[in-house]
């Protein structure tokens, strides 16, 4: 333990004395937040329309329910995503923070046929579950109401056989900055940990410091533990700075609970391990930075840091699912902004498992001695 504290103290002193490292460690995410926050703080980010079609026969959509979905699709205003009929639609909308979810009820086809034939006002109600805080849900609502109005006019000659019940769900408005902030905190944990690990490992290898350390009683695991704690502390420092910007500049309401703190620590553990793995395969410090960039840049843009995954093409969403930063961002967002304890815990547990595996592999392949 004494060795770990000694090395940690040395690392912290080194960090504190390197003003440019401190600046760039904190400046990059801060500038990102300030710029993106200033541009997008008023805009919302969701414009999907989810539909649950309960009017099925043998698992197939009935004629008129299918027609309605086609009409909505042809408006070319939003992405239509189908929700399985077995799911409780309202709960699903709440859990997944959906802007708009339209439920087409059972009997929709039959009522429409009846209205066409008899022009009666035999009513059937669709339900539109929507986030009233989202401007895009208002657009969806107006389009859905317009289509319903038209169907009433065309099919039953103005008799109101079809109506829409609107069910608001979201008590709180989430803006881009709410979405963005946890993502940048996760991203900072990633860049700090990967770049620091890769840089220090390749530099110590190149300059022979590892050889010198290997001739002392300091054990390799003690050094790795010290470096990981250092990365966690620097990630926390980045987190504090970004939260201050969020609260002071953007008046955000953010929850920092134990889960989010554990998530940042586990993310640092995970990315420290990944950094060590990268460092094992680079030959010199110059190549180390390039290799770290190759790993961090795609993750930065494909893991839902800047854009919600659902807005990306399907193949990129598939890629995102194998990128560890995705789970860090999702977990932090769930814990800090949306208050979804289950999702936060699940993602934190997942990142913790990945973190332990990566640090074990990283430690195992980091060599101080030569063959």
């Amino acid at each position, binding site marked *: 333990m004494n060795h770990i504290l000694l090395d940690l103290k040395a690392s912290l002193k080194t960090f504190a004395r*390197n003003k440019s490292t401190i600046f760039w460690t904190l400046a990059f995410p801060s500038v990102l937040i300030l710029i993106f926050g200033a541009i997008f703080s008023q805009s919302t980010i969701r414009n999907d329309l989810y539909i649950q079609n309960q009017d099925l026969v043998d698992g197939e959509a009935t004629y008129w329910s299918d027609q309605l979905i086609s009409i909505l699709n042809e408006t070319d205003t939003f992405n239509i995503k189908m929700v399985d009929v077995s799911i409780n639609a309202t709960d699903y909308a709440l859990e997944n923070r959906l802007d708009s979810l339209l439920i087409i009820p059972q009997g929709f086809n039959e009522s429409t046929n009846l209205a066409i034939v008899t022009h009666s006002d035999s009513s059937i109600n669709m339900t539109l579950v929507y986030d009233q805080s989202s401007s895009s849900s208002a657009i969806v609502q107006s389009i859905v109401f317009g289509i319903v109005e038209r169907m009433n006019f065309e099919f039953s000659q103005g008799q109101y056989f079809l109506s829409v019940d609107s069910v608001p769900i979201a008590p709180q408005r989430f803006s881009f900055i709410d979405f963005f902030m946890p993502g940048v905190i996760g991203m900072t944990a990633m860049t700090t940990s990967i770049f620091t690990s890769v840089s220090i490992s390749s530099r110590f290898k190149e300059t022979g410091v590892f050889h010198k350390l290997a001739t002392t009683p*300091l054990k390799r695991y003690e050094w790795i533990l010290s470096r990981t704690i250092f990365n966690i502390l620097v990630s926390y420092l980045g987190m504090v700075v970004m939260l201050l910007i969020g609260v002071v500049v953007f008046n955000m309401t953010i929850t920092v609970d134990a889960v989010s703190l554990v998530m940042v620590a586990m993310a640092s553990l995970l990315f420290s391990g990944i950094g060590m793995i990268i460092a094992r395969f680079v030959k010199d410090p110059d190549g180390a930075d390039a290799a770290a960039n190759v790993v961090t840049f795609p993750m930065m843009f494909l893991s839902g840091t800047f854009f919600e995954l659902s807005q990306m093409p399907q193949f990129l969403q598939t890629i995102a699912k194998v990128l560890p930063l995705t789970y860090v961002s999702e977990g932090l967002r769930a814990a800090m902004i949306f208050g979804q304890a289950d999702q936060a815990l699940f993602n934190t547990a997942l990142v913790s498992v990945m973190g332990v595996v990566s640090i074990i592999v990283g430690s195992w392949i980091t060599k101080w001695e030569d063959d």
Partner: protein
Amino acid sequence: MSSDLAISVENLTKRYGDLTAVNGISFNVNRGEIFAFLGPNGAGKTTTVEILVGLRKPTSGGAEVLGFDIAKDRKEIKKRIGVLPQSFNTYDRLTVKENVEYFAGMFDSSPDVDGLIKLVDLEDKKKAQFRNLSGGLKQRLGIAVALVNDPEVVFLDEPTSGLDPKARHGVWRLIENLHDEGKTVFLTTHYMEEAEALADRVGIIHNGKIVALDEKDKLIAEHGKKNLLVLRKADPKAVSVIDKLGLKANYDEGEGDVSINLNHAVAVSDIMQALSSARVSFSELQLKRSSLEDVFLNLTGEELGKEEPA
């Protein structure tokens, strides 16, 4: 292993694929001596040191350091040795004092940090960060760091490589101090003058093999050229005078010098007396001693390289 021995190496071999870096070498280092491993770059010096201090595993053969097996007792060896790796580096934003304290902490030892800094003459640089030190000062700090655990054996791998002559002589003084304190010093160098100036015994290594190992004077006597007495701008009749003493002499017409091959049978004073009696004139007298450079050339057919440190 005898208790008089600090290091005992037996048939040590290290191969990297087809390359044999160290080829079945055996030697001993006595306690309290300065032992120099002399050879050109790539001869196998650093590989040998790195095997002895536990940074590399030998392909075959073995060694003991202070009676401990390098394969089994690395932990015990680490506690008792100090190592200055080639081109010492450390936490570059820690100060001289902080670096000494850091490594002392790693050995769980409490040395007199200020005393160590004084020993390597870095008192006025105590608060300077490592990155701001010159090459010579960095090596001096490296030596201080190598002494934090009061080691019995100190391994110095090319301690003056790349240093200017002044810095090099500063490091030499430190090494002599270690010797005076009774520590065993294992030194590798490709500077012939360094081995001559410091070592009690010298092992000459070439292409992974030890080609000679002995006290440096014995090596020179056995494998070096004869010592020469040179009479500058001399009367050529000196050659016949020297012949009569049973020594060999050559006259260089171009320079006008007469070179006399010395041996133990005839004292220099007898030569001078004979020259004086024969009234042989000369402008200057020079003694050219054979060196380890000559020994190396004689044994390997190659020059060790007289590159001056940068």
